[in-house]
């Protein structure tokens, strides 16, 4: 097996100066949400990192995640990272199709056995294997086959990470997440609908530079990006603290950019980096655009109450049951009083 070049070698071959490299490391640190003091270590790690092989599997998905990633893959710094990986299989992006494509997948698996990364977007239907197939192979079979020799699996997007929209109630296809199926390999969840492209590349960069998996939260998400809530990092947070809320999408509060909590913002319970990393090369993010956070990077976000229902809203049934409770109270009270009176009468008779 020929030795893949290190990233340092690749950059050097491209005539990038040390200053340029330092600049690159600084921006990488920024992407990885690492403190600037880590730059020297990153520099060292990147210099010696080698191109890994990546196999991308797309199951029940909308290609939004790929769109998100490829939109970001204009030649930016993170784009360089993609130059540094070897995307050996991605049936949407690759030119090859059918048997040829599958052959490429098998070749990559064989050549990099035990070292390649598997990226998955989309959920896997278990209801009927025929619901979603690629080259006649059911999603679940392809996943199991591909993952067998992988170093790690990255579940890209909320569908792969948590089941997502295909898995939403009533879940007609019996969709499950990658973690539901892959138990013996490390799985990194990069949820979001879609995930922030920079976050996707950062996870790969992390793997590439340090050769290890990032620290994960209880949902298997890299803490570096999913460690804090949107609410915590939201520039509108001061308005929340002041109790200034937009009540409709076109009132004075909305125009003044007040907090969107009342409009159902899920920022306080949503762990993601949108508020700082932002979208479209740092242009904006939903709250900045005036729309509450939907909480798309959280499990079951689709089924977790209305998007426009404030978080503090309780989920009550109709008032009828409450009226029933009240009626029960009246009955119990009457019974208790009657029992009390009966006791009194009995005691009076006894003297």
């Amino acid at each position, binding site marked *: 097996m020929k030795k893949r070049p290190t990233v340092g070698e690749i950059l050097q071959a491209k005539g*990038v*100066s*040390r*200053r*340029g490299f*330092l*600049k*690159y490391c*600084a*921006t990488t*640190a*920024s992407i990885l*949400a690492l*403190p*600037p*003091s880590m730059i020297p270590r990153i520099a060292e790690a990147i210099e010696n990192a080698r191109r890994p092989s990546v196999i991308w599997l797309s199951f029940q998905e909308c290609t939004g995640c790929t769109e998100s990633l490829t939109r970001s893959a*204009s*030649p*930016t*710094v993170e784009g360089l990272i993609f130059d540094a990986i070897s995307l050996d299989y991605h049936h949407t992006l690759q030119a090859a199709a059918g048997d040829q494509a599958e052959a490429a997948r098998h070749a990559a698996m064989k050549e990099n056995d035990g070292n390649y990364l598997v990226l998955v977007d989309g959920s896997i239907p278990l209801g009927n294997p025929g619901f979603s197939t690629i080259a006649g192979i059911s999603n679940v079979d392809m996943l199991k086959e591909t993952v067998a020799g992988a170093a790690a699996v990255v579940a890209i997007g909320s569908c792969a990470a948590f089941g997502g929209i295909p898995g939403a109630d009533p879940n007609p296809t019996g969709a499950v997440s990658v973690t539901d199926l892959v138990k013996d390999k490390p799985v990194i969840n990069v949820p979001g609908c879609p995930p922030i492209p920079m976050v996707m590349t950062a996870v790969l960069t992390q793997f590439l530079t340090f050769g290890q998996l990032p620290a994960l939260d209880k949902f298997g998400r890299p803490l570096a990006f999913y460690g804090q809530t949107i609410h915590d*990092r*939201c*520039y*509108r*947070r*001061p*308005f929340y603290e002041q109790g200034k809320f937009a009540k409709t999408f076109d009132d004075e509060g909305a*125009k*003044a*950019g007040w907090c969107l909590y009342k409009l159902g913002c899920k920022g306080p319970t949503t762990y993601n980096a949108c*508020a*700082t*990393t932002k979208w479209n*090369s*740092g242009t904006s993010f939903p709250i*900045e655009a*005036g729309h509450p956070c939907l909480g798309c990077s959280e499990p079951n976000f689709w089924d977790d109450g209305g998007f426009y229902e404030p978080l503090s809203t309780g989920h009550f049934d109709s008032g009828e049951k409450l009226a029933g409770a009240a009626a029960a109270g009246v009955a119990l009270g009457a019974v208790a009083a009657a029992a009390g009176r009966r006791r009194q009468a009995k005691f009076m008779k006894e003297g």
Partner: protein
Amino acid sequence: MTTPQEVQRPTSPFHGNVRPILNEVLHALDKLLGTNESTTIDLASLPFGPGELEHLEALLGKGELSAELDALGTSSIRETAYPGVWWLEHRNAFDEVVGRYLEITRTPEILSSQDADIVAGRAHLEDQFE
């Protein structure tokens, strides 16, 4: 193409995110003077409302020195009106900002010539003699 409706930008840039940064810069300057320790603040990791970053930039102003670096796109390294506080902005080949930092230091490291480059440059110079 026109936008379907005019979006009103909030008139006030004050969401309260600028002040804490200035405070942090102040402490970093104390540290620089005290223990000669440099600090780098990654502005991308901090929340900013519309207009706030510009507000911060304007507040810090322009100092005596500014340099431009041309490596993997241009970068501007500029001392602010407050000596020791540097504003660094990295751009990629497409002139998109990819990183923005405040460095509180005497000279930002990236301004210094790097050994690896010196070695490569020296070899290059030697070639000139042939």
